[in-house]
C-alpha cells in the first residue's frame, strides 16, 4: 500500500480526533486532589495512604506531583481566590513564601482535631501550617571508608574528610540550613553569609547534589564517604547491604518540615481540613514512621521497638536545629548569589 498525501492527511486527522477524545478534564475533576512529591513518595501515598482517605470521604482521589517552586508559581498565578486544590503540602521554605499573602486558613484544633496532639514545633508560624511530615537529616558515613566517624556538623571541616564529602546545591533547603548554621557557628550569626560561604569554599571541590536521594548513588558507589542525608535513605542503603551508618550531629540534626495548609478560598476547604486531620492521625503518622522513617509529630504515636534505634522520638526531634524561614528567605538571594559566584 502506498502512503499518499491523502492518506497522510486522513491519518493525521484521525489520530488528532482519537487523541482529543476522552481527554481527562483535570481542572473540572470531581476527584479530591492533593499534591505530593514524586518517586517512592507518590507510589506509596497513592497505594497505601490515599485509598483510606478516599474511602473515608467517599470520593475518588488523584495526586498532583511536583516540586515546591512549580507549585508556588502556580498558586501565585492563580491568586488566593482560585487555589487549585483544597489542601497543600509544601516544604516550610515554600509555605513561608506565600504565608502572608492571604492563601491559607488559620488552623485550629476545632477544625483539625489532631492538632491538639502535636508537638509544639509542628505548629508553624501564624498557625497557617502544621508539620505533617518531619524528615530528619543526619550525618551518614561509609563505615569502610571512614576510620573515625564524624560527631557533628563541625567535623565536616576536619582534614580527614577532605575530598570525601557530598553536599547539596544551595537551592536545596538542606544547603541553606547548613550555610546558616555555619554562619552562626563560625561567624557572627545566621545572617553572616560571607563567613558561611567562605567556610564551604574551604571544603571545595565537593559534589553538589539537588536532592537527598541523589546523594545515595554516590555513597553506594563509594564516590563519597560522608554526607548529610535523610535517614530514610540511610535505611534504604543499609537494607541493600551497603556498609553505611549515621550519627545524630552533636550540635543537633536538621529537619525538613513538610507542612500542610488549607486554602481558605477553596470551595472544598472542609475536605482539606479533614485531609490534614487524617495525615496527622496516629495511624498515618505511624505508617510514615514505619515506612519512610518520618518522625511523628503526633505525640500520641507509640513507636515500636524496631524504630527505637532511629532518631524519631518526639523529644529528639523537638531538639532539632530550627530556622525561621521568613527571616531565612530574606537572606537567600544574597546567600545563593555569593555561593554561586564562590563555590
Amino acid at each position: 500500500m502506498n502512503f499518499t498525501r491523502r492518506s497522510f492527511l486522513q491519518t493525521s486527522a484521525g489520530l488528532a480526533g482519537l487523541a482529543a477524545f476522552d481527554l481527562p478534564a483535570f481542572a473540572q475533576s470531581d476527584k479530591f486532589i492533593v499534591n505530593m512529591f514524586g518517586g517512592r513518595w507518590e507510589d506509596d501515598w497513592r497505594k497505601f495512604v490515599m485509598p483510606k482517605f478516599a474511602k473515608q470521604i467517599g470520593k475518588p482521589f488523584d495526586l498532583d506531583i511536583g516540586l515546591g517552586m512549580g507549585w508556588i508559581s502556580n498558586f501565585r498565578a492563580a491568586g488566593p481566590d482560585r487555589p487549585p486544590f483544597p489542601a497543600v503540602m509544601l516544604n516550610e521554605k515554600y509555605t513561608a513564601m506565600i504565608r502572608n499573602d492571604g492563601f491559607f486558613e488559620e488552623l485550629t484544633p476545632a477544625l483539625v482535631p489532631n492538632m491538639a496532639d502535636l508537638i509544639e514545633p509542628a505548629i508553624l508560624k501564624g498557625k497557617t501550617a502544621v508539620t505533617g511530615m518531619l524528615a530528619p537529616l543526619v550525618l551518614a558515613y561509609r563505615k569502610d571508608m571512614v576510620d573515625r566517624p564524624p560527631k557533628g556538623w563541625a567535623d565536616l571541616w576536619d582534614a580527614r574528610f577532605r575530598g570525601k564529602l557530598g553536599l547539596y546545591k544551595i537551592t536545596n533547603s538542606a544547603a541553606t540550613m547548613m550555610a546558616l548554621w555555619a554562619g552562626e557557628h563560625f561567624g557572627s550569626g545566621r545572617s553572616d553569609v560571607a563567613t558561611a560561604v567562605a567556610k564551604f569554599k574551604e571544603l571545595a571541590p565537593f559534589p553538589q547534589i539537588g536532592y537527598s536521594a541523589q546523594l545515595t548513588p554516590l555513597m553506594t558507589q563509594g564516590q563519597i564517604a560522608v554526607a548529610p542525608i535523610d535517614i530514610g535513605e540511610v535505611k534504604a542503603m543499609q537494607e541493600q547491604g551497603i556498609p553505611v551508618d549515621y550519627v545524630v550531629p552533636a550540635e543537633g540534626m536538621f529537619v525538613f518540615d513538610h507542612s500542610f495548609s488549607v486554602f481558605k478560598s477553596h470551595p472544598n476547604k472542609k475536605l482539606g481540613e479533614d485531609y490534614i486531620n487524617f495525615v496527622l492521625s496516629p495511624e498515618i503518622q505511624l505508617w510514615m514512621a514505619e515506612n519512610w522513617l518520618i518522625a511523628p509529630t503526633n505525640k500520641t504515636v507509640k513507636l515500636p521497638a524496631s524504630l527505637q534505634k532511629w532518631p524519631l522520638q518526639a523529644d529528639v526531634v523537638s531538639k532539632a536545629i530550627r530556622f525561621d524561614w521568613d527571616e531565612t528567605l530574606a537572606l537567600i538571594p544574597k546567600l545563593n548569589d555569593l555561593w554561586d559566584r564562590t563555590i
Partner: protein
Amino acid sequence: MTAAATPFGDAPAARYGFGLLVVLLYVFLLAPLVTIVGASFTSGMLIEFPPRGFSLQWYGQFFQRDNLVAALLVSLRVGLITAVVTSIMAMMAALAGQAMAGKLGGWFQIGMVLPLLVPELLTGVGLLFFLYKIGLGRSLLGLQIGHILMSFPYAYVSISAALRQVPPSLGEASSSLGATGWQTFRLVTLPLVRPGLVMGAIFAFINSFDLYTMSLLLKPVGGTTLPLALFDFLTYEFKPTAAAAATLSILLALVGVALVQRLVGLQRAF
C-alpha cells in the same frame, strides 16, 4: 571506487584527520544515548554504565508504574495534537508569509519565530497568568496551547523553507489552466511542500514531547508529562526505571525517523 576528497584536501593526513573528526563527532552525539540505553539494561539497582549484568527488569518496573505510563500517554497525546495543529497553522502562516512582500514580510517572519527568541521560562510565566485569567489555568487545554506555541516556530521554519522551493510559476500555470486557489494548493503546492510539512510535524512532536519548563508551569492539576514525571522520579529515586523510560523515548524518536523515511524519504527531508 574512489574516496571523495575531504574538506581539508585529499592528502592521507587530511583523510585520517577528517575521519577522526567524524568519529569524535559521532561519539559526542551518541555517547549519552549509548550510556542511557546501556544503563536501562543493568541488573544492578543504580543507573550506571557500563551496566552490571543484563536484565529487562527496569522495563517491567516502568510499565508497572501507572504514573509513568499515564505521563507517557499524556505526552504522546499532547505531542500528537501539537504536531497536527501546529502543522496546519504553520502551513497557513507560511502561505500568508509568502504572500507578503517587503518589510511587512520580514517582520511577519520574525513574529512567527518569536517563541524561539523569548526565553521559554518567561513565555511560560506570561502564559500561565494569561491562562488563569481566561479560566484555563492548569488545564490540559492550557498545556496544549503552551506546547503548540513553543512548537510552532519549528514547523513554520521547516514549512516556509519548503514553500520557498516551490517555483511561483507553477501556481500561475495552475491558475491559468482554470484551477481554483484551493485546487492549486491541494494538487500543486501541498505535494511539493510535503517533505517540509512532515519534517515540521515531526519536529513539533519531538519538541512537544521534550518540553520541560513550559510543562512544569502549565501542567494540569493531577496530570503530568513524561519529562516532568521522570524528573520527579529521579529526584527521589535514582533507579534505572528512568533509563528505561528514556530508552523508550529514544525508540519513539527512531520511529519518527522511520516515519519520515516512509513518507518522504530522508534524503528529501533534509
